[in-house]
């Protein structure tokens, strides 16, 4: 029993990272119909930047994260404005190609700036809490709390603020949103800024829990899209449920079936869910 609980706790932290990545992907997809492949690499850039600020410049961790977040906001807007906006009214394949090119570019820049060696963001959070036999390292606890807080903030933003409602409205019916007076030129900027900032948070989490290295971002974006499909395209609750399901499934599969097939089993679950619910867990039929 403790083993199962422990595996679920293990999976929740990584699931939280998946959720943050998927939230960014799902809002971008919902509003622009773009599969933003570069998201993982941009997120890793945020992690690298945090590492550089902490290890190279001596910034305190929280300040470094803040700087990386603000940088993420700006980068997100720049990506929308410079890369995706010019092809907005063109054939969808154009945006697809831009997304692929952008991925290679950002991966290349990461390699150029930060090298090929893996990077671990130092945190000094070494305590371990033990709750009835289930252990929870301090760092993982903070990662879970931070992810929960960000998910809550994102939900409140989308449900309770005018801009958030406008984002939903554009996603659901672009023309009607224009008729309500929504400026459909600024909304994509906001969406990319927020998505990228969430991605940067995910990058910091990956970088402190595990490590950042070339290729990690691409792997994460694949998981992110798996979450999107699992949860339902464009659905925010779907991203949350899908991310946690994927994280916990991976942990349970590695713990109870075989660690060698961790990734495979996660995708088997995804395919099984889609066979039963083609629209995803939270998607509308």
């Amino acid at each position, binding site marked *: 029993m403790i083993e199962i609980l422990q595996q679920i706790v293990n999976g929740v932290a990584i699931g939280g990272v998946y959720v943050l990545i998927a939230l960014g992907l799902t809002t971008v997809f919902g509003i622009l119909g773009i599969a933003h492949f570069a998201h993982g690499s941009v997120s890793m850039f945020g992690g690298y930047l945090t590492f550089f600020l902490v290890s190279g410049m001596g910034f305190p961790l929280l300040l470094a994260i803040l700087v990386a977040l603000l940088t993420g906001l700006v980068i997100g807007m720049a990506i929308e404005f410079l890369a995706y906006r010019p092809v907005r009214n063109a054939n969808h394949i154009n945006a697809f190609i831009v997304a692929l090119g952008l991925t290679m570019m950002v991966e290349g820049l990461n390699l150029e700036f930060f090298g090929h060696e893996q990077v671990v963001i130092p945190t000094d959070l070494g305590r371990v809490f033990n709750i009835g036999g289930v252990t929870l390292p301090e760092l993982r606890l903070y990662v879970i709390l931070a992810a929960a807080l960000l998910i809550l903030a994102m939900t409140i933003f989308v449900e309770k603020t005018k801009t958030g409602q406008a984002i*939903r409205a554009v996603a659901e019916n672009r*023309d009607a949103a224009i008729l*309500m007076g929504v*400026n459909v*030129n600024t909304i994509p900027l906001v969406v990319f800024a927020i998505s990228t900032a969430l991605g940067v948070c995910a990058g910091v989490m990956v970088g402190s829990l595990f490590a950042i290295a070339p290729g990690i971002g691409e792997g994460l974006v694949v998981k992110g899209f798996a979450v999107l499909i699992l949860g339902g395209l464009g659905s925010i609750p779907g991203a949350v449920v899908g991310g946690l399901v994927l994280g916990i499934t991976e942990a349970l599969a590695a713990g109870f079936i075989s660690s060698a097939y961790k990734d495979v089993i996660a995708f088997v679950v995804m395919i099984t869910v889609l066979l039963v619910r083609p629209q995803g867990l939270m998607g509308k039929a």
Partner: protein
Amino acid sequence: MLEVNDLRVAYGAIEVVHGITLNVQAGECVALVGANGAGKSSTLKAICGLIPAKSGRISLEGRDITNASGHAIVKAGITMCPEGRQVFPQMSVLQNLAMGAYARRDAEQASDIDEMMDMFPILRDRAGQAAGTLSGGEQEMLAIARALMARPRLCIFDEPSLGLAPKIVAEVGATIDRIKKMGKTILLVEQNAAMALRLADRAYLFEAGEIVLTGTGAELQKHPEVAKAYLGH
């Protein structure tokens, strides 16, 4: 209030509106009638900034709004209740109404929502429900209420009765009549010419992208050609 001068609208190389001129005075209800594909909806879309005008001039209260962006036109005071209702299906009725007031910055939005729910009691009953789960008639009421939430100076209705059951069509007609009596300025596009002409102070008859006839609602109702072609007499 609204002046449209020699407006031309084209989709690529194909021109569908060939230089029409019309106006709507404050407090009036003006109807655009005509067959499907006559250019009524394209005219509306150009007025609302959803598609560009090829040439001509559109102005609201003397201000040029030709080819202004959609959200700027909403701010200027024009709101459209679109064809096919176009509610936000996964958002609640309440959220849809609140979106209607998106361009407003005043503090009276909550009381306006209350007012709309008094006007359309069914919306109060369904307030928390996703708009997509409402019936067609209920969605139409929501779309109308959502449009009114913007407190528009000019309210445009694009085919409000399309696809609704006859009983609901009558209800929609009655609703527009009520809005008219509230003193709103209305531009109404309807294929149901009988209803449109009954509601309208004035009307324009569209044929193949041009205005071929204009007059008061009563005049057009009596016009033999209109009666024959559109009213089924």
